[in-house]
């Protein structure tokens, strides 16, 4: 009896594993299929390197270079802002002796990760965008920078949690030795924990970067959605924002529709690449 149950359990878990793996491939195949059609009408390089996005004009142009650049630009800005904060926070968490305070901080970070992105977008629109308008005397505060700031807050928990884990381990490992040698806590953190966590920091960066690239709603609300080449204080449009904004009105099977799918495909390729990078860095 027990053995049959065991077998059944193994079988079921195999089935579910296979299903989830198959699901991924089905998604990739579906998107690839929908997007390949566009290359019958548009040259691949024109699509990737084209500067004009105007799929509804008499002579439709579908170039997504501005969107690709904006997607990277926003994510890089977000990482640049959140990485120092995240690492500092992770170090503090790792070295915190007070267990109750530590679990309190961790749970706060958890809540931060759980806030719906549309809420972040709303706060971004009313606070960050407004702030930039006042601070930089901009006509409109919708910009790559505001997108980056909002995203920085959103990816912070990911950076902290994955970096803090490794740091905590090495903190426990070196604590006794450091105490015995009489080095100060800050020296230990600087000279031992931080260099030791290099790999983890890189991993957390990649994870946060891929999160940032895929974020849709919050970015869409604060970035202005203009399909032009991005500048730090200028408007831009990321690939997820482009798709979310336009897929509802794109005619089924039209050039516009396929162009949006292909934009999604390009984004997916980038993300798969980043994920692969994530796994290789994690192994090191």
């Amino acid at each position, binding site marked *: 009896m027990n053995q049959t149950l065991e077998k059944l359990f193994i079988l079921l878990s195999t089935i579910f594993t296979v299903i989830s793996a198959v699901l991924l491939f089905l998604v990739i195949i579906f998107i690839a299929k929908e997007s390949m059609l566009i290359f019958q009408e548009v040259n691949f390089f024109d699509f990737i390197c084209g500067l004009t996005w105007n799929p509804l004009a008499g002579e439709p142009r579908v170039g997504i270079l501005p969107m690709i650049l904006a997607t990277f630009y926003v994510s890089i800005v977000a990482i640049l802002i959140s990485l120092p904060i995240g690492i500092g926070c992770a170090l503090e968490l790792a070295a915190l002796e007070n267990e109750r305070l530590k679990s309190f901080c961790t749970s706060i970070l958890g809540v931060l990760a759980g806030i719906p992105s549309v809420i972040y977008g709303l706060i971004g629109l009313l606070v960050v965008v407004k702030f930039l308008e006042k601070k930089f005397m901009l006509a409109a505060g919708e910009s790559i920078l505001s997108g980056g700031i909002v995203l920085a807050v959103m990816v912070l928990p990911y950076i902290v949690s994955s970096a803090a884990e490794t740091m905590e381990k090495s903190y426990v490992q070196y604590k006794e030795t450091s105490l015995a040698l009489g080095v100060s806590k800050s020296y230990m953190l600087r000279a031992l924990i931080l260099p030791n966590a290099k790999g983890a920091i890189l991993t957390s960066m990649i994870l946060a970067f891929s999160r940032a690239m895929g974020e849709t709603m919050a970015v869409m609300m604060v970035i202005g959605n*203009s399909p032009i080449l991005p500048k730090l204080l200028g408007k831009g449009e990321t690939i997820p924002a482009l798709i979310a904004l336009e897929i509802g*009105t794109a005619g089924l099977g039209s050039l516009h529709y396929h162009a949006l799918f292909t934009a999604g495909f390009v984004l997916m390729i980038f993300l798969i690449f980043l994920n692969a990078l994530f796994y290789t860095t994690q192994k090191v």
Partner: protein
Amino acid sequence: MKKKLLTAVFLVVSLAFGLVGCSNPTGGSKPVEDAKTQFKSEIKFYGSTTLAPVVSQLSTNFNERYATWDKVDSQFDKKDIAIYVSGAGSSAGVKSVIDGVSDFGMASRQVSDEEKAKIEGYQDFKLGMDALTISVNPKNNLIKLKDSLTSEEIKKIFSGEFKTWNDVDPSLSKTEIVVVTRDIGGGAHEVFQKAIMGDAKVRADVIQAPSMGALVTKIIENENAIGYASYGMVNQNKGKLTPFKVDGIEPSSENILNGTYKISRPLIILKKGSLLPQEKAFMDYVVSDEGMDIIEKLGFVPNK
């Protein structure tokens, strides 16, 4: 090896069973008569994001009053009223009717003859009109100078020919005009494009707001912003944003209904073929005085 093969075979078989199991209850092969006698308690609305809140408010009120279909009409079955409303844009609404995936489509633009031709037994219900007002922030100094903009001026502002407010009027400061639009492929923009822009393109660096609410928020928050806020939104936010007359014609409910105000669009519910009795019962409620009151309360111009 053999074990692996066995697992694979089992997988395929179980998947096949699963798929068969899925298709059974919906019964693609059931006789037509059976489907007719079965009372349909669900009505699906799909389309315009402008109309979606209207229909969903109407359905909520309808539901609160009757709860089950037999209370609407004693001939109906005792089943819960289930009216589903989802917003996805006017074109998607029309498409859903053509494809037959929804019971009703919602469109906040004229349905083209080409589209009508694709719908067998096309019929529509005009609920009212929605107008786009050219609105600015009340702190914008332009409203002290004039209360009307010509189509030509609006066109120049939106196309980027006028870059700063100073270009619109020499006495204004040289601050950049912040143009806010909805997504360029959407229904609202289509109305604006047809009425004002014609063949001209809007400038590339406009802010594309993901919803009408976001567009209005932007105008309320930014002194230099100009955008096409819907008439309903202006009424809901009275005092927070200021609409201009267009070519001297005020966006009032009269002007909008009789069509003299240029930038307006109809609110239409469309249907393929004839209505089921329960669908008719709901649509009767929608076009009743009470239904029209709700449409007016939500800020549109009811068709009365």
